């Protein structure tokens, strides 16, 4: 396996993702953040494995730490599907579609993943 190929696979399979399950409210409610890993990523979305069930249709804030990017990318994503994993009762797989949101880093994301097109998500 060449080193280039290995780097490509890491980029496409396992990145650190922060998902905001609930935002901070107007009162004293705190934000709830989940830390998980991506399974694969593409131009328009990503698939994650997470210890929490996500609500299909929900629009959530996410942060992505790409191994080849200096800064964390802040994005808005909609949950398209979410299924419990067969091999574990407390693990879910979910597909997230990225949205064109102002103030987000969607343009940077697409530049970084310009050559990729993964239809799995």
């Amino acid at each position, binding site marked *: 396996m060449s080193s280039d190929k290995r780097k490509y696979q890491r980029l496409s399979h396992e990145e650190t993702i*922060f998902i905001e399950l609930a*935002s901070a409210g107007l009162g004293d409610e705190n934000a709830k953040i989940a830390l998980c890993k991506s399974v694969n990523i593409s131009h328009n979305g990503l698939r994650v494995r997470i210890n*929490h069930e996500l609500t299909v249709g929900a629009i*959530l804030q996410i942060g992505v730490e790409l191994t080849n990017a200096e800064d964390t990318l802040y994005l808005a994503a909609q949950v398209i599907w979410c299924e419990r994993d067969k091999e574990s009762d407390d693990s879910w797989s979910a597909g997230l579609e990225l949205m064109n949101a102002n103030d987000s880093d969607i343009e940077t994301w697409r530049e970084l993943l310009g050559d990729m097109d993964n239809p799995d998500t």
Partner: protein
Amino acid sequence: MNIEEVLGYLRAIENYDLGPMDAIRAQTEAVGDPSLPQPDQVATLEWLQNAYALWSEEFPIEEPLAGQLKRILPVAAAQAITDSDFTVPGAHPLHQLFDTIHDSAIGWQAQLGRAGTALETLIETAATQITDWFENGQGDLSGICEDIITKATKDQDRAQRMTQRLVETEKGKFRSASARWKSAEMINNNLANFSATAEIGSFLKGPWYESAQLVLLKFGADSSEWADMTETTRALLDSLQIDGSAEEDRRQQLFELVTKLPKVIKRWLFSLHMDTEGVNDAIGMIELTHMHLLRQQPIDLVQIEPVPMEGMSADRTMGAKLKTIESLSLGQWFLVAEEGEESQRVQLVLKLGQEQLLQFANKAGIKAMQHGYGHFCTLLSEGKATALRSGTSFSLCLAHAAAIKTDADAATLINTVKPEIEEARKKERQREESEQLQEEQEEAARLQRENEAAEKVQREKEAAEKQLQDQKEAEKIQLEQKEQEKEEEKKEQLQREHEEKERFEKNAIERQKNDKEKTEKLKNDSEAADKLKQEKNAAEIRKSEAEEANKIRIEEYLRKKQEREQRLAQINETPQYRSAEIPPGAELEGNEIRIPMGTWLGFHDGDTPLMAKLAVHDREQDSYIFVNREGIKMRSLNKRELLSLMENSLVDILEARSNFGNPTTGEAEDPG
């Protein structure tokens, strides 16, 4: 001139730039009135006039606030000649009002924009309410002053909270930078002493460098953990310094080292905590290199370039300037006017001794500027930065105008008055606390009574149970006695029958054998249970470490997110986005409504009010999507629809805030 005439002239003042005595003289001259106020009144009015002029000069605040406050001066003049409390600096509600407003307005500037609107409105309202009171004579002046002082204090508290938040963010930022710098320094010091393979060089400057920062953030530079990590770095590089001609002792030493190193390295690889494959790759690479060395196979050692450390050093040649910096107090306000730039009123919020940096915030609690110690000393010496005085400013000026020359004497006078005012407030607080204490005592007594009743019931229940148990015990003993008697009879019978005795002995031997087997089995079971317990403890420690590492990562993530939010917020603060036609918090940028992502809005165009936050603004699709806390879509509007709601006041900006909230209040979920 009688008192009513003097008050009439004071009510008629239109030119607020003149002091009250000068304004009365101007009016009497204009109408040809030869009379003047009584000599003691003239003296009092001139004293107030001089004090106010001194206050304006020594404790300046910016326009239009200063102009609004001048409207209150005729009222103060009327109080000065009618209320004996006014002659004692700090005693009168108007003294306290001017003192408090100055403390709140010392950092105010017109360029603050929307962030300064609240204080500007408060002072304008204060001037109007007090002059209305003077003209109509209705209501209670001290009540009005008290209300305004409370509001000004709240405004100040709000600004202080914002400043505190900024300080925490900046401290966090510098803590991270310091960890980065110390980690790079430690690795570079070792790289300067040893050569390494390119792969190990990449490892040290990659995951190991990141892990070192996390160890510093978690345990600190004085911790045994950091010392261990530093030693591990040295040991790893030292382990590579061996060639084919090495002595057997050195080879033996290496053999011992390479069996220990992977375990220690794994322990500190925090940055790859979530990446098992990454850890295995790194450890595998190190083990492979050691394997080559042990087999006396050659490896390519090169001098590794150090980790870049740009912008990480501080000026250490301060000398005497440090004294100047030490004399500056946190919270002190300055007027700074650098060449070619607009002058700014800024508050010193942070001194970073190690980096030799001073950080300043404006009144809105937003970072305004940052200077090195040396540069700021230069600004002070060149008069481009001047300290702004604060405190009980107006009361001090009243004292100075009464020929009390030093601040210390004036402060003594004010401090003798202040306790009386605060005594009344203190008594009220004590009364409230006393009532609360009484309520708490009554509640405690009630709880005690309930506890005693519950204990009594419990004691009765236990007594009944004990009685029942004693009865059962007695029956059991009786039964055992009977069985014992039977056994004795049986033994006697066995003694009589020899053959049966032999069989009995044989059975006894067998029982002994069984007992021994049982004892051994119990021992084995106990050992297995101990082992299981140890494994469980180790798993719990691993889990706890993983949770701690995740918590640090999430806090770091939230901190970076907040910095980004602040940058965006500062962009949105620029005056060109302000518009009077749209609600506060929303901006009209060109042809577009500009609302920061995460802003909470209140819709009341339907039957029931709805609260939702802006999750997505898609310019291309012309859509604004609003969701609840859990991200569920509540409303979707286009620009025209949203603008229509705003123009008809059917939507309020409830709070423009970060989507990710305050980093200190984020809750970590279990990682996936």
